[in-house]
């Protein structure tokens, strides 16, 4: 039985942001009519002057965030992923990443979490867009607990980050002891020997379910949570590839440009082994319930199982 988080990742972000704002006077949050919908409510209630809502004007918000960071502030600029990664891609690139300013670009409704809103509010290309911008770190938390830890940890990192959040509560994966280091993978299950699943976001919970089904088939898998897509933990990818001889990635994103691509770049150049990418197969989504969308667009538990079994088989062929 799946247990859902009490908080959505964006509300968890908002709780953590308030603690960050309590601890640091220089923290500002910028919104584009998204103060409520991005979880900035707690901070706005306590520090109304420090949450700046510019109205429905995302490009203005993002470059204003850069300006505020340039005079010494730690700025969280929050709108939906589809806007923060695409409508404001140039603002993030030229005015935040290029000057290496301390802005955390926060995207809500990442992946298919835009659900019933449909394609206009779903961001299944955001990681790819953000990942090819120099200086910019890219982070995808899995659930509410990890989002809180990650938000607080990112406040300690002085550079620009793209933080991708969801919309509704997602299945709980981690407890309050979650640890996060930017750029470091989190090995959730290190006993597996037949394949490694490298995953992030909502796919972590699904990978854990897949692992049980794969065990029933007689195989054991290593599971690595890769919340930081950039800078990617090359060392852990190589280690996992050498230990298990094959890798499957799973992400709520297009198969092009995201976690799978980042892992493939490492595997292909440093440690070639058979690999599969579980993701959305280069198509747009549609309106629907989040879990049902994930299942329909190639991100079901069964999709992970199938890809793992196939990659194990191809490993045997190459031997």
């Amino acid at each position, binding site marked *: 039985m799946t247990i859902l988080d009490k908080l959505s990742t964006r509300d968890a972000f908002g709780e953590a942001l308030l603690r960050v704002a309590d601890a640091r006077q220089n923290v500002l949050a910028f919104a584009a009519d998204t103060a409520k919908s991005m979880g900035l409510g707690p901070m706005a209630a306590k520090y109304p002057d420090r949450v700046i809502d*510019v*109205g429905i004007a995302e490009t203005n918000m993002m470059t204003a965030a850069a300006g505020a960071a*340039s005079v010494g502030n730690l700025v969280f600029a929050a709108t939906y992923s589809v806007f923060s990664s695409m409508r404001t891609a140039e603002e993030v690139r030229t005015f935040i990443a290029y*000057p290496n300013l301390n802005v955390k670009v926060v995207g809500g409704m990442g992946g298919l979490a835009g659900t019933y809103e449909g394609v206009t509010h779903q961001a299944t290309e955001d990681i790819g867009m953000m990942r090819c911008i120099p200086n910019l770190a890219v982070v995808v938390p899995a659930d509410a607990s990890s989002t809180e830890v990650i938000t607080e940890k990112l406040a300690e990192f002085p550079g620009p980050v793209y933080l991708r959040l969801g919309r509704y509560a997602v299945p709980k994966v981690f407890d309050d002891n979650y640890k996060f280091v930017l750029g470091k993978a989190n090995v959730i299950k290190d006993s597996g020997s037949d394949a490694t699943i490298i995953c992030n976001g909502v796919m972590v919970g699904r990978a854990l379910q897949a692992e049980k089904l794969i065990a029933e088939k007689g195989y054991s898998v290593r599971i690595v949570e890769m919340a930081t897509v950039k800078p990617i933990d090359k060392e852990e990818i190589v280690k996992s590839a050498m230990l298990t001889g094959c890798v499957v990635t799973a992400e709520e994103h297009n198969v092009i440009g995201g976690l799978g691509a980042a892992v493939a770049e490492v595997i292909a150049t440093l440690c070639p082994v058979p690999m599969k990418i579980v993701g959305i197969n280069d198509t747009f989504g549609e309106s629907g319930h989040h879990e049902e969308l994930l299942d329909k667009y190639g991100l079901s538990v069964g999709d992970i199982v199938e890809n793992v079994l196939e990659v194990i088989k191809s490993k045997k062929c190459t031997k």
Partner: protein
Amino acid sequence: MTGEDQALKAVAQNVRRNIIEMTSKGGGPGHPGPALSCADIVTALYYKVMRIKPEEPNWADRDRLILSKGHACPVIYAVLAEKGYFPKDWIYSFRKLGGKLQGHPDMNKIPGVDMTSGSLGHGLSAGLGMAIALKLRKSPAKVYVIIGDGESQEGMIWEAAMSAPKLGADNLIAIIDYNHFQSGGVTDNILSLEPIVDKWKAFNWNVVEANGHNIEEIVNKLEIAKMNTGRPTVLIAHSTKGKGVSYMENNNAWHQKVPSAEEYSIACKELV
């Protein structure tokens, strides 16, 4: 004319001379026309209006300048070099591989540059963010943004214009370098900004106008902006593209072009 006015005119003339140096001897074609257009504005700002400490470029409470029309950057580089932010010989590294003086302003490579710019339409938003943040921490600093008339066609300028009065950014001062030309031709033909004064008034800004080449007038008008009236101020500076070099004035061929040896020597003679 007072002695000080004459001294400032001489400074501006020297700025123009260095714009010609950079755009004649730099690594690639720079933008002399747009830089000459705002040479008097930039001189007024750095020599009379802004609170700065060149010996301490990162002074937290300094006034900021954003050159939103970043392609005019030789004008900023000329003034910063003269003020001692970096060695004067850096101007010969303009647009050259390995040089500090990038084709458009880079806040990390060039001391005294307060904000990276050059992608048009962004400067006012960056200035807005700075102004709000500075006000929140009770800094007396003002934020000046020089905006091209051409780039005022960007929607983002008007997003920032709409939000600045609402957010109480009365420490934000925009200056429109209104020379009526843009890269592709005459602004009034491509997409006119008129009625420009009414537009800014309708967006709840204090609007003042000045001759963009009368330093004394620019300084006086900006004194009004400094009074923190509860609203941001925009100065519409009526200017001439290419001002100060006879063959460049109102000749849009000089938007981006390298002077020949002969043209260079004519410009040098005119800018004495």
